[in-house]
């Protein structure tokens, strides 16, 4: 869950913290805000969930395109639970197989992308993304989608790896040659040595053995000491 509210405009904050979040008239404001997030590469999960809730209550106002945009935005913050939280607010028949309408089909496609990302099957993710033009249509509104996903893949990679085979990582990031090198050196700040990419140590990939020692408080001995005083010498 991402609670970065620094980019949230005041009028959105105003709606979210009042009962206006249930007012169907605010739908258009939230829709514009989703559009804005897509263009500016920002992300506001609470506002997006509020819009999905408005749709949930007022199905006649639903705009399929906005919902899929919200889902696409939620993909860019994996592995947080956001994508799932959005799905929970969709109509219950949105995930039935086979899909009942084109919208359900789009949702199912995005759901499969989300599962690939969560299962860390990055190479398959990119292959699936390129396998069908429908995917291209779905992500077209979300500026820098591929870049944002790459950054997330890089961060999960850095969690588990200190060194990784270059070819493997190229597949994960769907980048080769110059594009790969500039991403690794520029965006990630990692080093390439021959066919190995070296990732600097961080808190997550150190894997240091720790021993949690018992924390002994003086209070625990209170009774023993008291007894010692009370005991006749």
């Amino acid at each position: 869950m991402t609670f970065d509210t620094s980019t949230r405009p005041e009028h959105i904050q105003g709606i979210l913290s009042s009962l206006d979040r249930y007012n169907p008239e605010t739908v258009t404001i939230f829709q514009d805000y989703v559009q804005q997030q897509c263009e500016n590469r920002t992300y506001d999960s609470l506002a997006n969930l509020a819009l999905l809730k408005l749709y949930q209550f007022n199905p006649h106002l639903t705009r399929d395109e906005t919902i899929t945009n919200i889902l696409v935005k939620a993909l860019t913050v994996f592995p947080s639970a956001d994508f799932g939280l959005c799905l929970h607010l969709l109509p219950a028949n949105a995930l039935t197989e086979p899909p009942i309408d084109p919208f359900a089909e789009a949702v199912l496609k995005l759901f499969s992308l989300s599962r690939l990302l969560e299962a860390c099957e990055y190479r398959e993710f990119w292959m699936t993304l390129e396998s069908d033009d429908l995917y291209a249509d779905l992500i077209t509104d979300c500026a820098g989608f591929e870049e944002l996903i790459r950054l997330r893949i890089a961060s999960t990679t850095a969690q588990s790896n200190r060194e990784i085979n270059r070819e493997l990582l190229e597949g994960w990031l769907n980048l080769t040659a110059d594009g790969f090198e500039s991403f690794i050196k520029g965006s990630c700040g990692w080093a390439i040595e021959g066919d190995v990419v070296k990732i600097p140590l961080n808190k997550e990939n150190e894997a240091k053995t720790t021993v949690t020692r018992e924390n002994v408080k003086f209070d625990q001995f209170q009774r023993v000491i008291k007894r010692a005083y009370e005991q006749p010498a």
Partner: protein
Amino acid sequence: MLAGQNFNGTNRHLREDSDTDDEVLASTLVEEALRDDGDYDDLESAGGSLQISGENIQQRLAAAATPLDFQAPLQNRFDSYDNYCTLFHFILNSDGPVDLELPTYYWAWDVIDEFIYQFNSFCSHRNAVARKEGGGSEEERRLLCDHPQTWGCYSVLNVLYSLIQRSQMNEQLAAIKKGQDPNEVAGEYGSRPLYRMLGYFSIIGLLRVHCLLGDFTLALKTLDDIELNKKAVFARVMAAHFTTYYYVGVSYMMMRRYADAIKAFSHILVYVSRTKNFQKNAQFDSVTKKNDQMYALIAICVALCPTRLDDTIHASLREKYGEQFTKMQRGGPDALQIYEQLFMSACPKFISPIPPDFDKPENNVDPSQHHLRVFMADVRNSMLAPTLKSYLKLYTTMDLKKLAAFIEVDPEVLRTQLLVYKQRSRQTRWIEGGLLEGETINTSDLDFALQGDLIHISEAKVGRRLVDWYLRNLAKTY
């Protein structure tokens, strides 16, 4: 007072059990009828003089807090809805605050609880009828179709929010938090027990409604002003205490914050197991079924996020769900079915806020199935984790290919599974502040890092605990 009459002779926890056999029900009915009579006498003596426009308000108050029969015909559900509407309208929209004594101190909880319960079961029933699963008659379908507004989501939320606003409850709680006198901000309404209690429990009610609708984020956000501890007001009413933690736990679980969910469930389960000997009353009975459900949920959470439980909880868990728990902990495809079964039996009956599509039964899906599907995506992702963990525990360094050969999977599959393991062990956990806040922590006692194909494994060990042992022996020798 149609509704009032029909309320007699039902029992809350039995009613939730649709499969209870009639014999038990019949014998309980007798007891229940006797008990109900007693309650009604109390009410009359508490405020017999209160009459509004010729109607007996006390009877309405009592009716509002009395459980509706599980199998009550549709007409009763409609009547009951009207009854609530009139009652809340009277409480909220009279000229100035209504002067009423609370029949009992837990009356306010009972009303909100029953109000939401009826809303919940009405929506579930309506959905089942539309799916043609509940065996609803044609007449029922028509009736439901013609009254889409009854038990509408907006009106239920409206009642809860209005009660909170009238009593200035959020302002009062904020004042308490800051150490100020809540009465200064309570206003004309909020300073009266009736409004104060209704307002307070409406917050818990909102938590529940949001959770039922699948909005788990908002559910937890609703409790921003309430501090979850034993001193909280809700802790004085056992059922409220219990319900709050159940829904908080479910919400955390659905947000994949298993560590927090386990903490919420074990808090209340420990509390119940310690106090059950003092709580042999009807209020406690209603808790029994939910209690078992929580054990099922905590089993799911612990299987997904291995955690050491309190000894008493662990023992009861083994007793109630031992076999399922072992299977889930072992992982693998066989476990999936167990997860599904436990989820469906232990989660609340999720609802959809809008009336179903009566013309196209095939278009209606049970909301619980929908949530299950989303939840299972995360469960499926963790099926290899137990096996992985059992192997990793044995080594400090290990070659990826060699381990892959042991587990009999492709080395690249193993690599992604390791990434998944790492990713899933990093969870947001609450430290302080609102329930949604938290920091990312490592929930696993096992950690590793890949250097090419070499796995470095580390363990977070807990040192021996000597102080307890030392103190106990010291006490013996003295």
